[in-house]
C-alpha cells in the first residue's frame, strides 16, 4: 500500500514562504492532480515529495515512512519532468535501463524490464535512437517509460505535457490515463491546465499562493466551488460572476438594476444588504429553443449578443448583464449575428452565490 501523506508541509525560499503548511492525504492507487496558476506552489510541493527540494517544516511520508531526510533514490518514486530530462548521451534503451543499471541489477533482468516498458509505450522501433533524434511526443513517452521501468511506489509528473502541441497533448493525456489504468500506481500530477486536471484526476487539489484552496473530485470542484477563485479557475469558459446586493431574504439586486431570486442552496444563508457575487456557468444561460432543460426554476432574460465563438457542437455567446460581460452557451447552434437580441433562460437552481468580501461560497 502506498499512501502519500503531507502534514503541515512548509517551504521557505530565503524569507519567502512558497508553501504554507499544507495537509494532504493521497490514497494508494489514486490519481491526484495538483493544479493552480503559476507560482501557487504546486511544483514546489511535488519536488518536496520527490526529494529535490528540502522540506522547510512539516512532514512528508510515503507508504507510512517519513521521508523528509531521505535522498530521492531512497524514496522509491519516479518522476517525469516538463523538459523530459532525458540523458542526451544515451540511446532510448540506455535511458530506460539506466535506473536499473545504477541499482546494479542483472543484465537479463534489465533487458526484460526495458522491453516490457517499451512494449507498454510503443517504443520498440526507437530503442537504438538518441533523444536528439526523437520528436517531442516520443521523448515524452521515453520519459514515461523511464519512470515505469523501476516499478516505483509513486509516479510524479511535473507538467509533462506543457511542451507539446495541443493535438499531441490530448493524445498523451489519454496515454497517461491508460497507463494509470494499466499499472495502477499512485500518481501525483502537476499542471496549470484545468482541462488536464479535470480529465485525468481522481481528485483535484487546487492551490493558490501556497495554500490548498479546495480538494475534491473534478465534479465536486465544478459543481460546488468553495470560492470565486475555484469557480473561475475550473471549467471553460470560467464562471460568470456579477456583483449584487441581497435585498430582503430572497432577492438579489444585481449591479445594473436586474433582480434575481436567491438560489435555493443559499436561501436562509444570506442577510439583507449583504454584498455578494452572483455566479453561473455559461451552460446554465441558454437561448430559448436550444435544448434548454425543462425542469427546474428559471429566469427569463432578453440580452443582446456582442460576440460569438462557434465551436461546432455549441456556440459561446458573449453578452452583457447589468454591465458585466457574461458568456452563454447555445447548443444545436444556428448562426447568430452580433447585435441580435435573444431570449435567454437562466437556470436558477444551478446558480451560486459568493460573499463579496470573503469570496467564499454561500451554500446550505
Amino acid at each position: 500500500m502506498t499512501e502519500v501523506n503531507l502534514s503541515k508541509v512548509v517551504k521557505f525560499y530565503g524569507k519567502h514562504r512558497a508553501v504554507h503548511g499544507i495537509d494532504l492525504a493521497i490514497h494508494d492507487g489514486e490519481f491526484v492532480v495538483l493544479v493552480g496558476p503559476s507560482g501557487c506552489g504546486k511544483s514546489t510541493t511535488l519536488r518536496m515529495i520527490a526529494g529535490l527540494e528540502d522540506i522547510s517544516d512539516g512532514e512528508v511520508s510515503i507508504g507510512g515512512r517519513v521521508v523528509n531526510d531521505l535522498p530521492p533514490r531512497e524514496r522509491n518514486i519516479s518522476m517525469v519532468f516538463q523538459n523530459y530530462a532525458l540523458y542526451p548521451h544515451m540511446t532510448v534503451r540506455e535511458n530506460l535501463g539506466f535506473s536499473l543499471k545504477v541499482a546494479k541489477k542483472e543484465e537479463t533482468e534489465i533487458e526484460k524490464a526495458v522491453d516490457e516498458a517499451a512494449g507498454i509505450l510503443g517504443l520498440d522501433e526507437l530503442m537504438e535512437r538518441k533523444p536528439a533524434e526523437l520528436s517531442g511526443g516520443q521523448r515524452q513517452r521515453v520519459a514515461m517509460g523511464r519512470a515505469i521501468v523501476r516499478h516505483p511506489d509513486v509516479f510524479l509528473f511535473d507538467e509533462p505535457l506543457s511542451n507539446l502541441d495541443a493535438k499531441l497533448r490530448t493524445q498523451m493525456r489519454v496515454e497517461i490515463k491508460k497507463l494509470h489504468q494499466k499499472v495502477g500506481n499512485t500518481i501525483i500530477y502537476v499542471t496549470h491546465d484545468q482541462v488536464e486536471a479535470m480529465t485525468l484526476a481522481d481528485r483535484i487539489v487546487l492551490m493558490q499562493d501556497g495554500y490548498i484552496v479546495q480538494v475534491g473530485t473534478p465534479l465536486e470542484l465544478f459543481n460546488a466551488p468553495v470560492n470565486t477563485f475555484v469557480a473561475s479557475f475550473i471549467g471553460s469558459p470560467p464562471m460568470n460572476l456579477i456583483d449584487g446586493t441581497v435585498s430582503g431574504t430572497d432577492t438579489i439586486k444585481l449591479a445594473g438594476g436586474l433582480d434575481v431570486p436567491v438560489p435555493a442552496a443559499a436561501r436562509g444563508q444570506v442577510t439583507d444588504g449583504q454584498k455578494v457575487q452572483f455566479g453561473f456557468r455559461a451552460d446554465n444561460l441558454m437561448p430559448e429553443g436550444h435544448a434548454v432543460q425543462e425542469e427546474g426554476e428559471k429566469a427569463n432574460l432578453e440580452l443582446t449578443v456582442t460576440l460569438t465563438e462557434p465551436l461546432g457542437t455549441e456556440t459561446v455567446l458573449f453578452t452583457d448583464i447589468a454591465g458585466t460581460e457574461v458568456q452563454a452557451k447555445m447548443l444545436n447552434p444556428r448562426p447568430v449575428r452580433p447585435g441580435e437580441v435573444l431570449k435567454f433562460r437562466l437556470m436558477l437552481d444551478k446558480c451560486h452565490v459568493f460573499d463579496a468580501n470573503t469570496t467564499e461560497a454561500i451554500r446550505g
Partner: protein
Amino acid sequence: MLRRRFPEWFVLLLPAIIVIAAVVLIPLIFSLYSSFTPYKLTRPSTLWTWVGTYNYEKILTDAKFWAAFGRTVLFLTIVLNLELVLGLGIALLMNKVTWGQRTLRTILMFPMMFSPILVGFQFKFIFNDNIGLVNNALQSMGFNVALPWLVDGKLAMFSIIFAEVWMSTSVFAILILAGLFAMPRDPLEAAKVDGCTPWQSFRHITLPFLMPFIFIAMTIRSLDVARAYDIVQIMTGGGPARRTELLWTLMSRTGYVDARMGLANAMGYVSILLSIVFTIYFFHKLSAARAQIGMGG
C-alpha cells in the same frame, strides 16, 4: 603598349596574399629550405650548400634530441593530466559557490595574466636551494634539509611541472566551469530520482557532458605545453646537464647558441609532428564526445 590586366578576384585578394606570403609563407619556405642546408648564422654563405636530408638523418640518430622529445611527451602527459584533474576539481567546487563567485572566477584567472617569464623567475626564487621560500619554510618547520630543487634532475622536473600547473590549471578550470554552466539541470535531477548516488550522477551524467569541454581544453593546452620554453629556460635553462631539456630549449640552444639554424629548423619540423599528432588525437576525441552527447559531429 598593351598592359596586362589581372583578373579582378586576384587584384582584390592581392593585399591578403602579399601579407600572408610575407609573414607566413616565405618564412615557412625559407625555414623548410634551410633545414636541408648546414646553415649557420655565423657563416651566412652556408645557406647555399645543399646537404639533402643530412640534418634529418642526424636528428633521427641523435640521442639528445630523442631524449628531449621523450621528455617533452612525458612533460605534456603529466602536465595535461594534472591540470585536468585539478581544473575539474576546482570547477566542481566553484560551481557549488553561491556567493562571490564572479570575484572568485576573476581571481582564478590571475595566474594566466602573468608573463610566463615572470612566473619562471618567481618559481626560480621559490625553489632556490639557499634563499628559496620552500627550503626556508621547511627549515623553519624543523626539517634540517636544503633540498636541491632546481639542481637535482628529478626535483627540477618536478619544480617546472609545478610552475606550469600553477600557471595554467585555470584554463581547464574556466573551460570546465563554462561546461558546468551550460549543463541542463534536469538530467541531473532525473538521475537523482533514478537512484544515482552523487558519484554515479557525476560519472554517468556530468562527466560525459563535460568531455567536449575537456577535450577543447586539452587541445589548446597540448599546443601550449608542446612549445613550453619560457618557464624552463628561466628556471633551469634545460639543465642540470640537460635533465630538463625540452624540445624548444634544445632547438633554441641549437639555433641561437650554437648558431646551427639549419639543424634547429629540421628539429622544428620533426617536433611539429608531435603537436599535429596530439591535435588530431584530441580533435578526434572531441568530435566523438560531442556526438556522444548529441551536439552533432
